[in-house]
């Protein structure tokens, strides 16, 4: 399994205003898998995700991407690594002054990766993939929550990343849209062979898409297992979390 390892987080610690959010956390992500990271609100899931995506610097610890410690890299080198990552933010984080099409094209234009016609084609293809082709000229303010998340995914896919990080992809969406997003994540993983790391407190989503599930508790990964293994878990913390989530759903 080690040769298949894409990301390795080692002894990651992060403090905010004296409060320990992550306490020497270890985690591994393997190529091609969908790793769902669960945990209660405020557990530090998004903080962990942003560290893995190279958007935050840990107080202590290392994060290896293909055996390269991204914590030690300069901003310029880190930018090259970031191009291998795609990030879907909780509320989309689309650039409000740009249309959906311009949002998707931005990185390709900025890095001069393709010519004008090729970029237009890529934008159309990515938006078609997420069923948003009709919204190419719309501004983010004209989109619903689900559409924003899909546009954010299209933007992340434009650079053909190796890894996609999803931050709470179903938060604030109705059940039908949740199903839609779940399907989209599964399809993206299957069709493109891309590795996905999904941070969520939505148990149904984690069990629906995760090849493995990791549970974040008190700043550390408490358990990592397959969905089946998780259901059979003897851990009281896992049982309580699943029970609570079940109660919220019913």
């Amino acid at each position: 399994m080690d040769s298949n390892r894409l990301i390795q987080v080692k002894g990651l610690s992060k403090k905010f205003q004296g409060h320990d959010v992550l306490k020497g956390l270890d985690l591994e992500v393997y190529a091609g898998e969908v790793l769902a990271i669960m945990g209660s609100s405020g557990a530090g899931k998004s903080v962990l995700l942003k560290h893995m995506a190279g958007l935050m610097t840990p107080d202590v610890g290392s994060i290896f991407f293909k055996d390269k410690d991204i914590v030690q890299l300069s901003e310029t080198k880190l930018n090259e690594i970031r191009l291998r990552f795609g990030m879907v933010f909780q509320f989309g984080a689309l650039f409000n002054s740009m249309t959906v099409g311009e949002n998707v094209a931005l990185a390709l234009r900025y890095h001069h990766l393709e010519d004008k016609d090729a970029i237009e084609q890529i934008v159309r293809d990515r938006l078609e993939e997420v069923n948003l082709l009709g919204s190419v000229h719309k501004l983010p303010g004209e989109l619903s929550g689900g559409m924003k998340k899909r546009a954010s995914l299209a933007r992340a896919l434009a650079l053909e990343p190796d890894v996609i990080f999803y931050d709470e992809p179903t938060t604030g969406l109705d059940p039908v849209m949740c199903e839609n997003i779940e399907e989209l994540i599964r399809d993206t993983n299957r069709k493109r062979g891309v590795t996905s790391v999904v941070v969520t407190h939505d148990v149904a989503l984690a069990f629906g898409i995760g090849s493995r599930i990791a549970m974040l508790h008190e700043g550390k990964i408490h358990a990592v297992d397959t969905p089946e293994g998780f259901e059979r878990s003897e851990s009281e913390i896992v049982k309580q979390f699943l029970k609570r989530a079940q109660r919220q759903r019913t």
Partner: protein
Amino acid sequence: MAAELGTMKVQEEIDALRSLGIHPVRYLVMPRFVACTSMLPLLSVFAYVAGLSGGLFVSFSLADVLPRTYMHYVIMVTSTLDLVAGLIKAFFFGMIIVIVSCYEGLKTVGGAQEVGRATTRAVVAAFISILIADFFLTKVLSWTPIG
């Protein structure tokens, strides 16, 4: 600028830029820097013209000073070098406004309330910095042939 960048920061748009391998300072701050440092001197030229025209209008309509006489005295008491010093100061003031506003905007954390606070801090800091810079620039320019 502080409000705009602050809003982008709290809505994770700055993180989104970084996740796309785009340096936020290069992408967001540099164009504002170029715009502000080049446009503020131009704005000063506009202010010169507006001020002189206003003075001419008031002195002619209220004090019966002939435009030719007015312009004669304006030229007598104002040197080209005064105007150049004003333009140099405007360039530096533009620089201060951009640096302070963008710094406050980009370090905003939290929500809408923090964006408001960042904007207020930017205005106060830029205002005080301009007053201080004005003092030193006047001193420095007085030692040069411009002064």
